[in-house]
């Protein structure tokens, strides 16, 4: 039996998404940009998917730009906005690398520190803002520790100090857990990724609110109203829409159920494992995130033992080579190195069951104990 507790990395596809996509790999293979019957069929599916995605994100269909995933959506927001109106790029120190590296690639990147609970330091944010700022990017929920950022409050600070700046939010991790229509409403640009909520990999979207201009970062045939060229990934987009619809329909009940499982998991582990601590404040977190640090243990070794026992978990973000990298998120939160090295991220999802939590609670404490007692 495999217990999958790495939903922040990716989620299993929802059956309704798979089913919705299948015809577009076979009989409905058309290029949605064409005009004949086969193309029109694909176009209809694309248009309908766009309506659904817009509705789920609180946007109008014309505000949706489909992309090749969350990373591209974040890059389009930051590099595309910077190209449209050059200026400083501001982001928090705990952003996903898709945002952090996109900002750092620009001439004037300003990185805002966070407090020890992972929430952005408002005074520091105000301190780096001025009228030259082009884009401010603050993630809605963090991928490692699950902290939710107070976007409305952030938007007020930005509007006051950098009136010409646009506010971008990376809502990739948030979509499964938060009412994004409301939570992301203060942002001008919103990025999501389908595979984080039961959709396929390689498709995402950026909301670009009316009146905001982004320059394309991928040029070509002028699809997506000239904001993102490339033949429409019809199957992927249809799959994303289906997964979004299902996620939104079940969100309230899923959040309540998974939060209960997460609380049992986190509380159980904290009680069973001495010298363990929870990262961030639980009230500020999305329901699926359980992030703990075990002192005197190395994540790499723990993950290998857990894998052997059938538990799929993560330490943070993995590098291309597949090793565990030191977390820039924990560093930014001021977590001491001795604790950060023993980080474990258990991320639950809509398919997580009480039995999954039972097995994790059975397997993890002895694994930590075994590593601690080894010579």
């Amino acid at each position: 039996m495999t217990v999958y507790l790495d939903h922040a990395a990716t989620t299993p596809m929802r059956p309704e998404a798979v089913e919705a996509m299948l015809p577009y790999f076979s009989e409905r293979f058309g290029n949605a940009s064409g005009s004949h019957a086969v193309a029109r069929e694909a176009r209809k599916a694309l248009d309908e998917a766009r309506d659904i995605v817009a509705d789920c994100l609180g946007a109008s269909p014309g505000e949706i730009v489909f992309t090749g995933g969350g990373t591209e959506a974040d890059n389009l927001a930051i590099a595309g906005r910077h190209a449209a109106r050059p200026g400083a790029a501001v982001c928090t120190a705990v952003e996903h690398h898709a945002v952090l590296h996109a900002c750092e690639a620009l001439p004037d990147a300003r990185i805002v520190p966070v407090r020890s609970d992972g929430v952005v330091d408002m005074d520091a944010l105000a301190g780096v803002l001025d009228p030259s700022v082009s884009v401010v990017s603050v993630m809605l929920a963090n991928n490692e520790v699950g902290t939710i950022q107070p976007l409305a409050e952030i938007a007020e600070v930005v509007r006051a100090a950098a009136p010409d700046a646009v506010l971008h939010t990376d809502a990739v991790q948030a979509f499964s857990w938060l009412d994004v229509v409301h939570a992301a409403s203060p942002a001008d640009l919103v990025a999501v990724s389908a595979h984080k909520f039961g959709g396929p990999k390689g498709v995402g979207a950026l909301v670009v609110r009316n009146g905001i201009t982004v320059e394309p970062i991928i040029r070509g045939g002028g699809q997506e109203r000239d904001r993102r060229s490339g033949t429409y990934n019809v199957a992927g987009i249809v799959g994303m829409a289906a997964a979004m619809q299902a996620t939104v329909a079940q969100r309230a009940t899923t959040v309540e159920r998974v939060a209960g499982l997460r609380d049992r998991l986190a509380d159980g582990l904290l009680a069973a494992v001495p010298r363990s601590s929870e990262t961030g404040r639980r009230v500020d977190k999305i329901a699926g995130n359980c992030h703990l640090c075990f002192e005197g243990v190395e994540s790499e070794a723990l993950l290998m033992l857990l894998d052997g026992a059938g538990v799929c978990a993560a330490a943070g973000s993995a590098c291309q080579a597949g090793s565990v990298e030191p977390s820039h998120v924990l560093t930014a939160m001021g977590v001491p190195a001795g604790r950060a090295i023993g980080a474990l991220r258990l991320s639950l999802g809509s398919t997580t069951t009480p039995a999954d939590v039972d097995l994790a609670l059975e397997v993890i404490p002895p694994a930590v104990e075994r590593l601690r007692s080894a010579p």
Partner: protein
Amino acid sequence: MSGGVDSSVAAALLLEAGHDVVGVTMRLWEGDVEGTCCSVAEIDDARRVAQQLGIDHWVFRFTDDFEERVVQPYAAAHAAGLTPNPCIECNRHLKFDRLLRRATQLGFDAVATGHHARVRSENGRMQLLRGADPAKDQSYVLYILGQEQLARCLFPVGEITKADVRARAAELGLRTAAKPDSVEVCFVTASGGREDLLRARVGLRPGRVVDATGNVVGRVDATELVTVGQRRGLGLGGGERRYALSVDPAAGTVVVGGLADLLSDTVGLTGLTWVDAAARGAVLAQCSAHGPAFEAEFDGGLLRFAEAHRRVAPGQSVVLYRGDEVLGGGIAA
């Protein structure tokens, strides 16, 4: 598994022998790499071989220890005019310490590598022997292993020749079958070399090249890059062949002399380690990874060669053998 042919075949041989095998690649270095074992391409090769063999593959990130235990001491040694051997320090501190401890922690009985050397158990004592292929023997870089480590080490390819290793790899269709052997220090790039690394870490200072009487006879751009025994690159022009006899970066001098001055029949050893009991008396002493082994007598501190040889650069490891058996060794003072 470094992504090379030896460790690939080592894994295959262990599987054939019925062991429960997991492949591990150590990620040690984050600086520039060009086709050495920490590059993504090499880790990809290791993973692909593991997939071919049907075993799990993990990457362990040990960059902190590598920096502290291998790269920093390497740079410090050059700054002090010594000639270090970082591969031996990596074996000492990473492969056969940190990795071995991690493996034990995870419940594994042994760590196997692709080294060409052999381990034998004789009356309950572990022996370390030269590899079956004399041309590829790597026992020199393993002299730092003791009884406890050898009891948990396997060198499957040490029992066969390199040609057989490649043949086995080809037979199994392993993608690494025809990969060239790695020969360079993994954290030193081919383009920038030692020079760039040391310049960035310890700075390079020019020096005077002097003869035994103190006359300045040449100049070098960086004393830190000069090795005892070196002949070229000392700015000496023509004439009689002269060699670096000693290097003193602090004073900014390199002393040179003729071949006769370079010869010595003794070398003091420090930091001695032994495979089993400390050895005394008649030994064979090997002073470089693939150099010859010379007859010598060891008194516990000073090694006296039967004949004078070119002196061993301070910082180099000297490994003591009896026949094909590694006894231990130390670092030339």
